[in-house]
């Protein structure tokens, strides 16, 4: 079953095209990694499918809910009305590169605020679920701490728990380990690996090639706002067909 459908999306910042007609699908339970050089449009892609940026043209749908489609007459993307978009927001979660936890809330409140005030859950239910999620990411003891008291790796694990608390169909990661010291990336990757084993549908923008190869079902290599190559992670990362993919990956294996 297709959870996310993206067709020919285009996006420019001013006159600078950032996404030049991308298309891909995500199926239930699939883990997709997006790799590529900085400035290739990976983050913009995530921001477009999570409604943080608006596309200029193209089609995006979550299951049967259409987020945006190109108007035939004008050629411009038209977004669905606000209530539909709000319904779509409930279907995905996003984990940011720099966590973006709410500094004035405790860990517990960071996780429960949206379930209570957006999803309308009772405080007891939200807190019970939050505790289970904190256990899952290995931070059962930290419910009453504030983000500033946690390490980067711990903050990112809270951010993952916060996203999971809204029970998304699909979870996006925007370079989840890029702001972390190398010794802390492991704890994040482990959490993502566990989620993959539970068949959580995920799209991960990452520079961790070995991780992308091991954990994903499919890899997309992006360059200059377009998908250059996609397919089986082993094939794309170890034996890329495209010259550009090969050149990009060579820099990683050399380092």
């Amino acid at each position, binding site marked *: 079953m297709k959870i996310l459908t993206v067709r020919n999306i285009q996006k420019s910042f001013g006159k600078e095209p950032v996404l030049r007609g991308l298309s891909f699908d995500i199926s239930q339970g699939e883990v997709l990694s997006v790799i590529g050089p900085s400035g290739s449009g990976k983050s913009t892609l995530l921001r477009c499918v999570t409604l943080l940026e608006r596309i200029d043209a193209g089609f995006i749908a979550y299951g049967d809910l259409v987020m945006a489609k190109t108007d035939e007459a004008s050629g411009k993307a038209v977004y669905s009305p606000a209530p539909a978009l709000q319904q779509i927001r409930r279907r*995905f979660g996003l984990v940011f590169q*720099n966590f973006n936890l709410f*500094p*004035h809330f405790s860990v517990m409140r960071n996780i429960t*605020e949206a379930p209570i*005030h957006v999803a309308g859950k009772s405080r007891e239910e939200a807190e019970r679920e939050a505790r289970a999620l904190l256990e899952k990411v290995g931070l059962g003891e930290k419910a009453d701490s504030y983000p*500033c008291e946690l390490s980067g790796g711990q903050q990112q694990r809270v951010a993952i728990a916060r*996203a999971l608390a809204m029970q998304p169909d699909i979870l996006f990661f925007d370079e989840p380990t890029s702001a972390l010291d190398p010794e802390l990336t492991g704890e994040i990757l482990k959490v993502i690996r566990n989620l993959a084993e539970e068949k959580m549908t995920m799209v991960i923008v990452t520079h961790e090639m070995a991780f992308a190869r091991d954990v994903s079902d499919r890899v997309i290599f992006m360059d200059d706002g377009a998908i250059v190559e996609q397919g089986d992670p082993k094939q794309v990362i170890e034996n890329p067909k495209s010259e550009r993919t090969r050149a990009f990956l060579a820099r990683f294996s050399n380092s």
Partner: protein
Amino acid sequence: MTWDDILNIVVRMAETSLTTLQLFFMTLIISLPLGLLMAAIRMSKIRPMSFLMRGFLLVMRGTPLMLQLVFFMYGVRLPFPRLHVAVVAFGLNYAAYFAEIYRGGIESIPSGQREAANVLGFSKRQTFFRIILPQVVRRILPPMGNEFMTLVKDTALARIIGVTEITSFAESMQSRHVTILPVVIAGIFYLVMNSVVSKCFAAAEKRLGYYSP
């Protein structure tokens, strides 16, 4: 001048200071929310609104409060008691300063906070009141402390339109008894009030400091 005279001045000045305190608190009640509204209009994406508000803020901050008091008293001729006319002028003037402080605070919150709230499905209203504003309050406490202390002292300007407050009372006592002592006592009154303001802000900063490392 006898000790009785001095005691009498202190007691009557304490009574007069109630007017000063009324002006102080009524100004805050008006200007704190009004400043937030002005900041919202100032940051509005609707260009003409933002432009007009910029002009208004420039006038309110760029002309003497004393002139504004005279303007509202004798120009606009508001049908209120003098104290309330003073509250209107003070309220608008201080709201203008608060608007700029709010704006600075709001713009200093990283965009990631809004984005995280947006992705979690918070409405714009929820995002502002639950996520942004509490962090803004924490950040603007020091400049707000300054404004509050200035306001305590600025209340003395209300005498221009005939409000009897601490300074005008001190002046009249000074000419009656031909001594500077009432002015010194008035100074002590302001100092005590501002010590309380300062203490309150120190306590608030400490209370809201729980989330900084």
